[in-house]
């Protein structure tokens, strides 16, 4: 039985919180290639762009149960296995379980159960030539761990992922960070989800400190962004670094790109209100990647007069008129974002963004839709017990002109997020009331470290 090259796929070595992101990332990367590929040296180079994996694997078989895995492995061509299993080779088998801890004896049982595979080499635990991995996925809910895994995979370790890249791009080392600078790994994941490639034009309408642009420029895309906050764009104001009062004059997005040698791909950043587009009506961008404000860490704002005026941060350098901002309802942000993207993305271009979610009320229908888009993926990252954010990837499949102008109004799914409007209120209702609504000093790291220790 000939194994189709489409069955070459890669699975994360260490199941961690990014597992589901990885699967989508893989699909996006496979789609980007468009055609089947041979897993040779070139392929191994491509593996290096799988940011979520510490290592990546050549998948030999998978299934929803161990017997399915066995059937899958038995249909894998033996000539693809034998180079790594011949009698003069050494190997070891690792067992990895996501969301469950296995007893030592159970691990041994599983290794023993793989004896139907033609291992002819010798086991060497210290420095084997080949490492095989059995991976078991027990879902994502730590409070509801199934007895049997949802899916199992078996494969051979191939090459290191780009954890080193993530480390070198760590926000701690980066010149210019803000309170909401994207975790370096996630920026690259977002760029992969958006199928960002060399010579693309990428836009971030809530650019902040430019974390996402930095990741995209690494792929050779030319980047631009806008943000309503004058001081962030200019690199001024209170510093996010612990021991620093004011941001230095060289702290700006361009400097970040320069640090990574991708300055040539920096187009522009501008001070602008994303709810009021400044771009001419044309399919300008190959991808739109963004992390809109949730209204928790950074306050959501939009120009226009309103009773609800946000207090400007202290010590801002008033060089030009900073207009009065009004509260920008969360649902409007996403409706505007989807609408903007429909008008300004190329056909087939992708929109990738974070959607904040109040978990107790979340349902799939809440993900905003737009008739010009197809929903590609929806991956959750838990922030706290009652909040999370979802990485949404959408692909443009229709031009706005092709639609009946009333289409998007007719379908209630095209603005379903309205029920989530009180995200800020719901978020804070679970916290100490003393902090109050307008507290912008909430430390994201507190939430993250609480989450990590679970």
């Amino acid at each position, binding site marked *: 039985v000939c194994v189709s090259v489409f069955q070459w796929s890669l699975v994360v070595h260490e199941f961690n919180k990014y597992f589901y992101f990885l699967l989508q990332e893989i699909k996006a990367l496979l789609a980007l290639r468009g055609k089947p590929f041979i897993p040779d040296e070139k392929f191994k180079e491509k593996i290096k762009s799988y940011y979520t994996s510490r290592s990546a694997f050549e998948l030999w078989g998978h299934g929803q149960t161990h017997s399915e895995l066995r059937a899958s492995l038995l249909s894998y061509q033996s000539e693809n296995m034998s180079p790594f299993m011949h009698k003069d080779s050494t190997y070891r088998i690792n067992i990895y379980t996501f969301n469950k801890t296995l007893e030592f004896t159970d691990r041994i049982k599983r290794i023993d159960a793989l004896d139907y595979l033609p291992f002819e080499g010798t086991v060497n635990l210290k420095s084997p030539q080949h490492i095989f991995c059995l991976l078991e996925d027990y879902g994502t809910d730590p409070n509801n761990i199934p007895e049997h895994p949802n899916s199992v995979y078996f494969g051979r370790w191939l090459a290191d992922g780009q954890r080193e890249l993530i480390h070198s791009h760590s926000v701690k080392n980066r010149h210019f960070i803000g309170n909401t600078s994207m975790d370096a790994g996630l920026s690259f994941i977002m760029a992969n989800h958006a199928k960002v490639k*060399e*010579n693309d*034009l990428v836009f971030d309408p809530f650019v902040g400190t430019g974390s996402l642009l930095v990741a995209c420029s690494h792929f050779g895309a*030319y980047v*631009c962004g*806008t943000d*309503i906050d*004058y001081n962030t*764009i*200019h690199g001024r104001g209170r510093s996010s670094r612990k021991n620093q009062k004011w941001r230095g004059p060289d702290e700006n997005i361009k400097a970040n790109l320069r640090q990574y040698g991708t300055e*040539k791909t920096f*187009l*522009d*950043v*501008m*001070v*602008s*209100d994303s709810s*009021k*587009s*400044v*771009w*001419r*009506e*044309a*399919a*300008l961008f190959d991808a739109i990647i963004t992390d809109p404000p949730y209204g928790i860490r950074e306050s959501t704002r939009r*120009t*226009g*007069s309103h009773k609800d005026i946000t207090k400007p941060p202290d010590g801002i350098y008033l*060089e*030009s*008129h*900073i*207009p*009065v901002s009004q509260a920008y309802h969360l649902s409007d942000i996403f409706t505007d974002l989807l609408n903007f993207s429909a008008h300004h993305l190329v056909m087939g271009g992708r929109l990738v963004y974070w959607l904040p979610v109040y978990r107790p009320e979340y349902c799939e229908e809440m993900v905003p839709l737009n008739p010009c888009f197809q929903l590609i993926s929806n991956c959750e990252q838990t922030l706290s017990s009652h909040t999370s954010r979802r990485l949404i990837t959408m692909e443009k499949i229709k031009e706005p002109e092709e639609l009946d102008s009333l289409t998007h109004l007719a379908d209630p799914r095209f603005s379903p997020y309205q029920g989530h409007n009180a995200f800020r209120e719901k978020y804070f209702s679970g916290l100490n009331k003393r902090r109050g609504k307008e507290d912008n000093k909430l430390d994201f790291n507190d939430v993250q470290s609480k989450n990590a220790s679970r």
Partner: protein
Amino acid sequence: MKLLTHNMLTSHVKGVTKGYPLLIKATEVKVNEVEFNPQFVSRMIPKLEWSALVQAAEEDLPGELVADYETNEEFLKKVHRILLEVEVLEGCLQCPESGREFPISRGIPNMLLNEDEA
């Protein structure tokens, strides 16, 4: 602000219908050296409003796009220079219909409108 960006911007002052292209009133312009990437320039050309670029460039760019520009390296180099190397550091962009000015400071345009203009 680079001229590639300028080519894509339009005035969004309320009520304005002919807000493109914005007029450039520069008080400080810089020409940087940016690595020439012919593929990127070729990809961008179809997205451009050519006449607006010619107008902004004030240089000898042909009034109409040349045929097979993808292989014309000399032409691409010219376009590259205009799109990516010329940078307006100080000045403003002016709406051609309303006259409203959007300031450019340290190379960064401020496109925010006031409450009454939005």
